[in-house]
């Protein structure tokens, strides 16, 4: 286990180095950060001076080397817009995003498992067909459209839901303010969570359904049936366990993907997390923040995958971590 974690850590470092190099290489094509820092009628001379001050005139490798040097000391650069260390800005925004991802995950788990099992057990019932039909629609509507439609329907037309932002939050610790301790906070997080889950939910229902149906065909389930074991026990104890293995693998990867989807969801709902921050940073050509964001997200991917592998080992003891790390 220890050897495995060390191996994973080394992998993480390699991944983040690669990301930082790529992010650094593309930043020249993102545009000119000075346009967002200076007014339009500022003279060319002033512009050049600032470019020099920011070190933007240095060759690529010099800039990258300087970045690596300070990154080793935990400094990923200073955001042009926030005027604070980029890493601090991201860590401040991280809890809001994580709460949103958490909310969406709860919705996905809470709905996809029962619905997936139901549609697998009763594939021909009207309700199953309806669920499958709706899930097709859900998977094919883009997240931002779902979000905008929800805002117009529930906020503007019905007036039930707040239209943007986080509402009232309660301070927990450090930069973590939570939505889950006030009624207003709950009201604000519901729609963004649903929007964020709208792509993944149908996918998981289908995945669980397909896996479950396959397992239901397997020998040991048939044998259990023949033995006269109660259907409930067959479904939830024998079949479900084996269904969940691939679901956990896919789920772990998808949590990472969900972080990417927060960019759209947060932007539409003006959710003050790191997703909307990233899109802003791209628009403002805030390159230090863009690079730092990509590195942090890369890190989250590596961490979630590692955790998934660990859980996988727990659920299925036949899998040996040491082998998997290779």
């Amino acid at each position, binding site marked *: 286990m220890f050897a495995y974690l060390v191996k994973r850590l080394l992998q993480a470092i390699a991944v983040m180095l690669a990301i930082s190099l790529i992010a650094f290489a593309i930043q020249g*094509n*993102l*545009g*000119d950060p000075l*346009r*967002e*820092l*200076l*007014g*339009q*009628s*500022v*003279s*060319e001379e*002033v512009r050049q*001076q*600032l470019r020099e*001050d*920011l070190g933007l005139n240095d060759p690529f490798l010099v800039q990258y080397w300087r970045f690596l040097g300070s990154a080793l000391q935990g400094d990923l650069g*200073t955001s*042009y*817009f*926030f*005027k*604070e260390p980029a890493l601090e800005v991201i860590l401040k925004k991280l809890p809001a995003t994580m709460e949103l991802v958490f909310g969406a995950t709860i919705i996905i788990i809470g709905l996809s498992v029962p619905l997936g099992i139901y549609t697998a057990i009763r594939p021909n019932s009207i309700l199953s067909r309806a669920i499958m039909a709706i899930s097709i629609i859900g998977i094919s509507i883009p997240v931002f459209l779902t979000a*905008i439609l929800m*805002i*117009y329907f529930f*906020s*503007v*037309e*019905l*007036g039930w839901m*707040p*239209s*943007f*932002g986080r509402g009232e939050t309660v301070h927990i610790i450090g930069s973590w303010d939570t939505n889950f301790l006030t009624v207003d906070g709950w009201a604000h997080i519901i729609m963004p969570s649903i929007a964020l889950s709208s792509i993944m939910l149908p996918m998981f229902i289908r995945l669980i359904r397909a896996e479950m149906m396959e397992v239901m065909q397997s020998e040991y389930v048939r044998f259990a049936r023949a033995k006269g074991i109660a259907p409930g026990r067959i479904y939830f104890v024998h079949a479900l366990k084996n269904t969940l293995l691939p679901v956990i693998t896919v789920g772990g990867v998808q949590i990472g993907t969900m972080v990417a989807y927060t960019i759209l969801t947060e*932007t*539409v*709902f*003006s959710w*003050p997390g790191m997703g*909307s*921050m990233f*899109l*802003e940073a*791209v*628009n*403002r*050509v805030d390159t230090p923040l863009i690079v730092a964001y990509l590195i942090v997200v890369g890190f989250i991917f590596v961490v979630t995958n590692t955790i998934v592998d660990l859980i996988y080992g727990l659920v299925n003891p036949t899998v040996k971590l040491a082998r998997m790390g290779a």
Partner: protein
Amino acid sequence: MNFLKSCVASAALSIALAGGAMAENTLRVAYDADPVSLDPYEQLSGGTLQLNHMAFDPLVRWTQDLQFEARLAESWEQIDETTMRFKLREGVKFHSGNEMTAKDFAWTFDRVKESPDFKGIFAPFTALEVVDDYTIDLKTAEPFPLVLHTATYIFPMDSAFYSGTTEDGKDKGEIVKHGDSFASRNISGTGPFIVTEREQGVKVTFERFDGYWDTESEGNVDEIVLTPIKEDPTRVAALLSGDVDFIAPVPPTDLKRLEDAEGVNLITMPGTRIITFQMNQERVEAFKDPKVRQAIDHAVNNAGIVDRIMRGFGTVGAQASPEGYLGHIASLEPRFDVEKGKQLMAEAGYADGFSITMMAPNNRYVNDDKIAQAVASMLSQIGITVDLQTLPKAQYWPEFDERSADMMMIGWHADTEDSANFHQFLTACPDAETGNGQYNSGNYCNEDADALMDQANTETDQAKRGELLQQLEQILYDEAAFIPLHWQNLAWGAKEGMNADEIVNALNFPYFGDLKISE
């Protein structure tokens, strides 16, 4: 649908009542962005100036009909050709409690001269001299007609508050374009609102300043919560659902929606930002011929663009100066006439047309990419084939600086609210030394026009100056120096009873201090 509407109305009402009970008068504002810094002179942008008009006061400010209104100056007089004397208001207090005097103006002036963004505007001024505690002299090297225009940019800072060093030994007064500074996070102005809380990119909270000098103002807003909402549909939805009281900008696609919605008012006003195309004479030989440029101007249907693409949300233009500016010529009409355009092309020897490249941003001006597409197809009618590329603004400006296409789009708002500024940046002979023609991607150059601008810039007689600037505008029109399209309109959305129409202006700095919400 009627049932739904009444539901919305009653929901909006109940929110309004609940809001009224919490604080006396809270105004919730949603803009597309929040100010980048609390420093009034760090970045020359609309966001900064909007903040300055809330937390600071200028010497003089613009009224809705573009006249000057005394603020911290009580009165002013020209004492000689190059000196304007301002008498300052007495008994004005900063948020810190310090009293405002002439020395704060002198301190602010010295600081502005160091600001990369603002020093250009203040270049004509040589000194700000303190005569006594409540009198200052603004001096220029040459006679300067825009002293009051520029005085709208003088927001005195609290010199005692911004002097000294911070705990880590940095000068409190320094202007830092990137990275941290005292002034970007701390603020003490004379304005109607104090910044009480700020989380960048999330919200800024203001509270009315108890000791505000302008006791005659009828403004009754006690608290302002400013939230940036970047997405247009969300910002509109926030207003319609009653989550905010005032929004700007309103996207053209939602104008009608706001107009029809109950409980919400749409306020529009002609703006002063002209949208234009420039024709690069160094890249395309044909553009050197005024006839070809006129032909293009004949091919472009400005009114059609305003009507169909802008949905009426623009004022058709045939020149750079909007109405109200000295150089504006009321009689100039757009040239649109395709047949005449073809004829001019033939006269110039290009009856068979030619091919050009065109570039435009796609997220800088309202509907910029759609406008460019329309212009490209209009040009095909006179035989010019256009290869169009639209780019996000972050990538567009480096291309613009490189002059990478034969025709490029540029919108311009004159920081000085003066006609000469358009010519200086957009159509004057490019000169790296003086900075003239910095945005002249057309490389249009007419020495007579430049001479008129130089003359106007030292002419303090407004009537004579107007004549010079109109002559200049006429030359640019006759030679089709550039293709003017329209002035972008401004639009705000406000909840009913906000009376916001009284505090907005063409410069887009709403004077929230004077906002009087109906009880």
